[in-house]
């Protein structure tokens, strides 16, 4: 008989008791978002991998302080963000994001014309440049909300901010982006 998969809460409880396999499952479940969060903050894949790995090791030892029933993802991402910021600070560089060479496939309907695709690509590149030009604190909030698809609550927890601060930074960042896009007429 095949047992049902363990829930996240059950995996956490087992990991708290030192079960490495259970913790491995949690690492597997969250390594994607952890690595991308670290990459957003370090701008370097090797630093991001190191930061994410260190964060998971620290989180393992901190599990005893993790409140049962709380959301694990933002708690983990907070540790990841701290590790990544430390590495960024040491390296003294700023993270910049890049676009894929080929844009994503359209969601449905007829394929766009080459002209439309080119225009979309230019608009995306301009928007990304505008995001990259934001102040770090605004850029991080935009990236968490739209690129990592975190909720405002999760963004606040991950970046160690209050929810109101996330809202105000997001609002300022969107205003700046609108202004810049209008200036460039894209």
């Amino acid at each position, binding site marked *: 008989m095949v047992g049902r998969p363990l829930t996240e809460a059950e995996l956490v409880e087992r990991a708290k008791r030192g079960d490495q396999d259970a913790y491995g499952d949690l690492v*597997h479940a969250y390594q994607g978002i952890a690595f991308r969060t670290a990459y957003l903050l370090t701008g370097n894949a090797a630093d991001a991998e190191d930061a994410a*790995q260190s964060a998971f*090791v620290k989180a393992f030892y901190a599990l005893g302080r993790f409140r049962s029933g709380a959301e694990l993802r933002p708690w983990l991402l907070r540790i990841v*963000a701290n590790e990544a910021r*430390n590495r960024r600070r040491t390296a003294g560089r700023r993270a910049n*994001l890049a676009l894929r060479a080929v844009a994503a496939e359209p969601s449905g309907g007829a394929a766009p014309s080459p002209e439309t695709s080119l225009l979309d690509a230019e608009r*995306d590149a301009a928007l990304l440049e505008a995001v990259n030009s934001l102040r770090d604190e605004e850029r991080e909030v935009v990236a968490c909300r739209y*690129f990592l698809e975190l909720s405002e609550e999760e963004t606040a927890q991950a970046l*160690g901010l209050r929810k109101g601060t996330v809202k105000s930074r997001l609002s300022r960042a969107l205003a700046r982006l609108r202004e810049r896009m209008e200036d460039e007429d894209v």
Partner: protein
Amino acid sequence: MSELELRLDRLGRELDWPETPDLRDGVRRRVADERRPREWRRPLVIALAALVVVVGALLAVPQSRSAILDFFGVGSVTIRSVDEYPELPLEPGRQFYGQRLSLAEARERAAFPIRVPSVDDLGTPRVYYLEDVQQVSLVYGSPEKPRLLISQIIGTGAIEKLVNSDQTDLELVRDGDAHGVWIEGEHVLHIPQLDEEIRLVGNTLVMERADNVTVRVEADIPKDEALEIFHSMR
């Protein structure tokens, strides 16, 4: 959702993310490595206690102090030994503290809880936020020549203290869960991110709290008074 937000949403799916590495083996290995000493918890505690005594004794010897301090760090502060201090201003430059904010604004922006001392007669501090290193400073007295400066920062490696063993004494200290070092005498505070340095005539208590926040209490006051200020921070 506005059109801009929809575009940002779509942009997120088109970003050139590097492939996510599988972290499980690395995490498991590092956890195993770090757990191994726990099987020897008692001997380790004894060894650590001995180490503290040895380091404390070596710190009292100027020649040894230089060598030890090359490797010494407390939270965000790295303490480096130097033979000579560079010629530096005694007053902080314009970018030294960062942006002046209210305490409430600083609490909004900092990624950690800001604590304020509750010792009587300190007065109300000016509050500054230095975004480059995410440091919050409470400045008592004039910003040019503060009678007390309390800085709070999270993480590692953002601040350096340069000490000259002929002019500075160091002592390991502990307050509950927090640990750190007492620096007595002239020394240099260096913020590599800003490439800004200032020569401090006063003493400094550097403490790392259990929540990874490093607190610096800098003033021309004795150790007990600095510890009292640190202890009162809520």
